[in-house]
């Protein structure tokens, strides 16, 4: 049995199955089992890729190498933990009367289909299909963001749909230009959008067209990454959607969009000399980092604040990949992993905390340590981890990015340090009273699933202290491929 086929088939079939059978008592378990199956097949696929090198699937339609298999493994892992987390979380939401049975059904089927679209986006070899899958990922999540049907959530979903739709339309224009440039070299066969063919002839692609194409692709996919000034949809969608959706949007969707940009950058770098693509990404990344850092201190809603923190980290990662070179790419990949794990853990903890206190306003969330010490510690440790405190893994990747910037782009270092400092002050100052302090909140009917939070944090801690050589080799190979 081919693990790749299995990995794509499980979310697709279970998504359709969950739509057809509706909300049963075993539906949450089916959701978890399907995510577990997807994760296991992706893990076996990863082992195969690392051992045997890149491979194709379905002719040349799909292509898996060490770069995208890394994202695949991360995506399926966070997908699994999110499905575990969402079991009790969604039941609590139902008891609070915020969700009805048909909406739970919608949530589970869309969650699986969302996983499917992301996996297709990551593994496809065709830059056009990549666009189609990104658009499909947007469509599956629109209804998830508006799941509560409150005025605010509808507004957030509308904004999300329109802004990302416009953004992706630009990416489509970029893809058309890319095809145009490639067709002149590769001819009018269907191969001119296949990445493996493009990368072989990237030196011959017309630089003027490629420059224009990359600008459109960066703006388009950058909207989905949350690069400023195109980030407006992101805090709303994260704050108003259900927490498991915030966790996968922040931890996974942003990564997938950034992956699309990385693939395009590899092509643009080959065609245009003088680091045009890299400079553009560095500029956007730095701007995003600064904008997000200064918006952080003005937030009152806890999920909104952590959404801005995601924008901030995406800016930092974009900056790292913009610098280019094996070290910076390695740091970027590591930071992406750490951010995904930490940020989804934080959203899990925040989800439980907001359920307990019945509000997302930070000034009303107090004394988590008294209500449930586990959640209190989870939020505190997660916050420390995301702020880049040693010994967590985020520290390691941020340190690598900073030292690399100091060496090659010293002008950027003060800006980076300033933004990181401002972000630290803003987030820590707000989380500290939420965790410690007085409260009179009541316990929840369904005990929260706290394992995923600590599992993520333990992984982040482990990578901060010790990166297994297996992982290093894998990251190194992926970083080299990015050039």
């Amino acid at each position: 049995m081919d693990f790749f086929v299995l990995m794509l088939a499980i979310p697709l079939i279970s998504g359709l199955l969950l739509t057809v059978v509706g909300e049963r008592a075993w539906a949450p378990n089916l959701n978890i089992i399907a995510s577990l199956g997807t994760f296991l097949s992706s893990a076996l696929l990863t082992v195969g890729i690392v051992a045997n090198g890149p491979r194709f699937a379905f002719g040349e339609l799909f292509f898996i190498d060490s770069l995208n298999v890394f994202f695949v493994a991360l995506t399926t892992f966070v997908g699994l933990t999110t499905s575990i987390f969402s079991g009790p979380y969604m039941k609590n939401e139902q008891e609070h009367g915020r969700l009805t049975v048909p909406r739970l059904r919608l949530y589970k089927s869309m969650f699986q289909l969302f996983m499917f679209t992301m996996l297709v986006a990551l593994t496809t070899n065709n830059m056009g299909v990549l666009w189609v899958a990104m658009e499909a990922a947007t469509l599956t999540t629109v209804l998830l963001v508006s799941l509560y049907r409150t005025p605010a959530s509808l507004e957030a979903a509308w904004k999300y749909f329109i802004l990302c739709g416009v953004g992706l339309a630009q990416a489509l224009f970029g893809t058309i230009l890319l095809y145009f440039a490639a067709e002149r070299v590769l001819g009018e066969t269907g191969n001119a959008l296949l990445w493996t063919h493009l990368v072989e002839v990237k030196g011959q692609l017309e630089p003027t067209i490629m420059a224009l194409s990359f600008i459109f692709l960066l703006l388009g996919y950058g909207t989905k990454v949350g690069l400023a000034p195109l980030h407006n949809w992101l805090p709303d969608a994260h704050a108003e959607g259900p927490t498991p959706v915030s966790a996968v949007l922040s931890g996974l969707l942003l990564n997938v969009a950034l992956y699309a940009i990385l693939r395009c950058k590899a092509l643009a770098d080959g065609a245009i000399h003088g680091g045009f693509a890299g400079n553009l990404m560095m500029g956007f990344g730095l701007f995003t980092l600064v904008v997000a850092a200064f918006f952080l201190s003005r937030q009152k809603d806890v999920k909104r604040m952590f959404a801005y923190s995601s924008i901030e980290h995406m800016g930092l990662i974009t900056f790292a990949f913009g610098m280019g070179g094996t070290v910076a790419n390695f740091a970027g990949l590591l930071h992406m992993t750490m951010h995904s794990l930490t940020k989804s853990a934080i959203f899990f903890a925040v989800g439980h905390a907001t359920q307990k206190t019945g509000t997302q306003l930070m000034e009303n969330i107090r004394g988590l340590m008294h209500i449930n010490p586990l959640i209190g510690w989870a939020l505190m440790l997660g916050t420390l981890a995301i702020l880049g405190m040693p010994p967590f893994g985020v520290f390691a990747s941020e340190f690598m990015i900073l030292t690399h910037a100091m060496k090659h782009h010293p002008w950027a270092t003060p800006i980076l340090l300033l933004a990181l400092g401002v972000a630290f002050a803003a987030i820590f100052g707000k989380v500290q009273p939420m965790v410690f302090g007085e409260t009179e909140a009541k316990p929840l009917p369904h005990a929260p699933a706290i394992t995923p939070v600590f599992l993520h944090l333990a992984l982040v801690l482990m990578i901060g202290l010790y990166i297994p050589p297996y992982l290093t080799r894998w990251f190194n190979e992926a970083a080299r491929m990015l050039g």
Partner: protein
Amino acid sequence: MSATAISFTGQLINLFASVILLLAFAMLAQRRVMPLINLFALQGATLFLSTLVVAVSTGQHHLYWSAGLTLVLKVIALPLILHRLVRRLYVKWEVESLINIPTIMLVGIGLVIIAFNVALPISQLSDTITRGTLGIALATVMLAFLMMITRTKAIPQVVGFLSMENGLFLAATSATYGMPMVVELGIALDVLVGAIILGVFFFQIRDQFDSLDIRHMERLKDM
């Protein structure tokens, strides 16, 4: 290039492209929702004809398929869905209070000039018979974008969004004789699913706000 150098098919394609651009301007100024949808259908029909002409003159087989797809999706299915929605939502007689149509038109003309300048270096590299239309395609995309910005009602915004897709499709046929089939099918599927999801969404918005005016949705902001 001199006017005499353009072949008959080339002239036909340029004509259709300019009709599409003209329709984009007409949509920009149209305040009633039903005529707006009809204009969108007309734009789709022109796009279908221009794709058909390119297909006949170049003999590219997959272009017949994309022309058929355009006909089914953009001339029949989407306008039909939108018409039904408008009737079911009772917004048939809605008139939008557009601020200052002449100004919007002037901004639109500015955008067309920008689009032509951006597309110029690419058009010169293109050796397809349709190369002149790339600038028009980009202009259509930008005008649709402008339309989305200036509208305050949900349905016109969506028509703007779909019209943007028309512009992109024109770009694909004019620069490259269309994208690979698998990609075009995928895009068509996305557009269709997107339209259906939006249909569901309209009802949710109306139930919640008693109106499809998106000016009600301005609560979420950063102070």
